[in-house]
């Protein structure tokens, strides 16, 4: 599969009637600009609205323009403490989200690489069986089995811990599949050569397979990070300690408070600023590591 980063370099046929090309070009660009606006404009409008007073947002809704509240709303969203223990701040939630994102991505990669390695490179009688056991987990999304999962976490005493937050999310096969596919695409001669050189399975894994998988690891890391960061149903249930809230969970709470009985003037500015903060890290990662991200997403397509 061609690498997307080379898109601009794909050669175009040179001979076409001039007039046609112009019109086609204009249509192409018009479609792309419309599409880009469709994707970008909603978030842009949210951003400009953050600069307005809460009263204005309540009465007039989303706004375009620049007023003076931007810095203040972002500051409040980041640093204003709320909750009984005064531990819920944007910074704290940002940290928790980062821990969830990194913890989930790293945990998933480590565990699924190990499992995939065992399945692909060992003569194991039950390898196929193990594969199917792992594979079946694709059948049941977390939303559907959330209550018993919660009971399991509680019985283990893991509620309100990062372990309890992260580990159950790892219980699905996607990562294992990914690495299984990738390992199987690596030439078999490599193992043979390693064995002839006297390398054991551990040495082969660490010295050869892991370095070979570097790009793959980076690619899947990005996808898993975004997936972990964006979780919200599970964190909502499992974190009762205010200090454990993640950004996405915090936003759910804010949306709820906005529509609660007898609330004061709802703090829309702060809420919108917080939702902006919640999207910045994953968006930046996707934009800056675009080629890895695209690779990670499409690689299993082989």
């Amino acid at each position, binding site marked *: *599969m061609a690498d*997307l980063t*080379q*898109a601009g370099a*794909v050669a175009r046929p040179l001979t076409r009637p001039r007039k046609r090309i112009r019109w*086609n*070009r204009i249509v192409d660009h018009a*479609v*792309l600009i419309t*599409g*880009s606006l469709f994707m970008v404009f*909603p*978030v842009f409008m*949210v951003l400009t609205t953050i600069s307005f007073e809460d009263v204005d947002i309540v009465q007039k*809704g*989303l706004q375009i323009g620049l007023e003076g509240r931007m810095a203040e709303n972002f500051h409040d969203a980041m640093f204003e403490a709320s909750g009984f223990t005064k531990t819920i701040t944007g910074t704290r939630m940002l940290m928790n989200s980062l821990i969830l994102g990194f913890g989930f991505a790293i945990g998933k990669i480590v*565990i*699924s690489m*190990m*499992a995939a*390695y065992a*399945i*692909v*490179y*060992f003569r*194991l009688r039950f390898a*196929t069986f193990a594969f199917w056991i*792992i594979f*079946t987990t694709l*059948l*049941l*999304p977390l*939303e*559907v*089995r*959330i209550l*018993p999962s919660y009971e*399991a976490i509680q019985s*283990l005493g893991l509620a309100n811990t990062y372990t309890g937050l992260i*580990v159950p999310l*790892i219980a699905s096969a996607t990562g294992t*599949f*990914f690495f299984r596919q990738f390992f199987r695409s690596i030439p078999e001669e490599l193992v043979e050569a390693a064995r002839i050189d006297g390398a054991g399975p*551990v040495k082969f894994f660490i010295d050869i397979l892991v370095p070979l998988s570097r790009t793959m690891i980076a690619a899947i890391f990005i996808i898993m990070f*975004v997936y972990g960061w964006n979780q*919200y*149903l599970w964190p909502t249930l499992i974190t009762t300690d205010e200090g454990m809230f993640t950004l996405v969970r915090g*936003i*759910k709470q804010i*949306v*709820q408070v906005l529509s609660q009985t007898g609330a004061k003037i709802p703090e829309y500015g702060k809420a919108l600023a917080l*939702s902006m903060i919640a*999207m910045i890290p*994953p*968006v930046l*990662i*996707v*934009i800056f590591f675009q080629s890895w991200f*695209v690779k990670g997403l499409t690689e299993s*397509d082989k």
Partner: protein
Amino acid sequence: MKRAGFTTVWLPIALLLPQLMIIAIFFYWPAAWAVQSSFYLQDPFGFGSTFVGVENYTDLLGNVEYGKVARFTLIYTVLVTFFSLALALLLAVKADAVISGAKTYRTLLMWVYAIAPPVAGFIGLMFFDQRNGPLTQMFQAFGWDFRLGADYTSTATAMVVVAVWKQIPVNFIFFLSGLQSIPKSVREAALIDNRSATGRFWDVTFPLLAPTAFFLLIINITYALFDTFGIVDTLVRSEPGNNPVTLVYKVFVDGFRGNDLGGSSAQSVLLMLLVLVLTVFQFRLIERRIHYT
């Protein structure tokens, strides 16, 4: 598996153990629990329970409302899948055709992938607000009395729009990468054979994209069925009322809001069967392609 492998026994077991343990505790046990409790009616606190056989299932299948939810889920899935695929395909074809600005377009069209569903839902809430949402006002200017939360069709429309918005990037990336993997020689040959760009697209490009499209079809169906949960929940503000909801959302509402564990579990089991069918279909039709998550 023909691969020449190592023969050590303890190592692969040790390597598999963490994954298998996590799956046993957080997947098989909960799944078994769901199957078991779908045959019981249980007191939420766990004090009493009555074995009712398949009554939870017959209640469900005899319930007109469950049928309506299933029908909406089907329509919703078709609409979300169709629009997000069609729009993404159009954009990918155009992004593949232009030279200047290609990179910028690509970035602008894919970054929404990273936005969390509840955040997308929140933005949707603002845009479709009953009093002052910009899109509400636009619809009203066209004479449609659009009311999120009060009117079934309005809420359904908002759900589809937000879900499509959130899903275009994934489809776009796959289509674009599919287009770019079409060999140069094929493109040039097509150019000679077929003068019209539209004809070229349907005769040559589209068939070459078909595997990607099939694969995306499954991904999008799964997305519409399960991953839009956060969008639905935010847009109905956790109060379904007379608004449309999807099957997964109903599992959540009955089990989580209503504490009807038996009924909710029976719905879970039905969904499991649905996913099973989809997965078998996916594996037979398009081997060795996987959806992450």
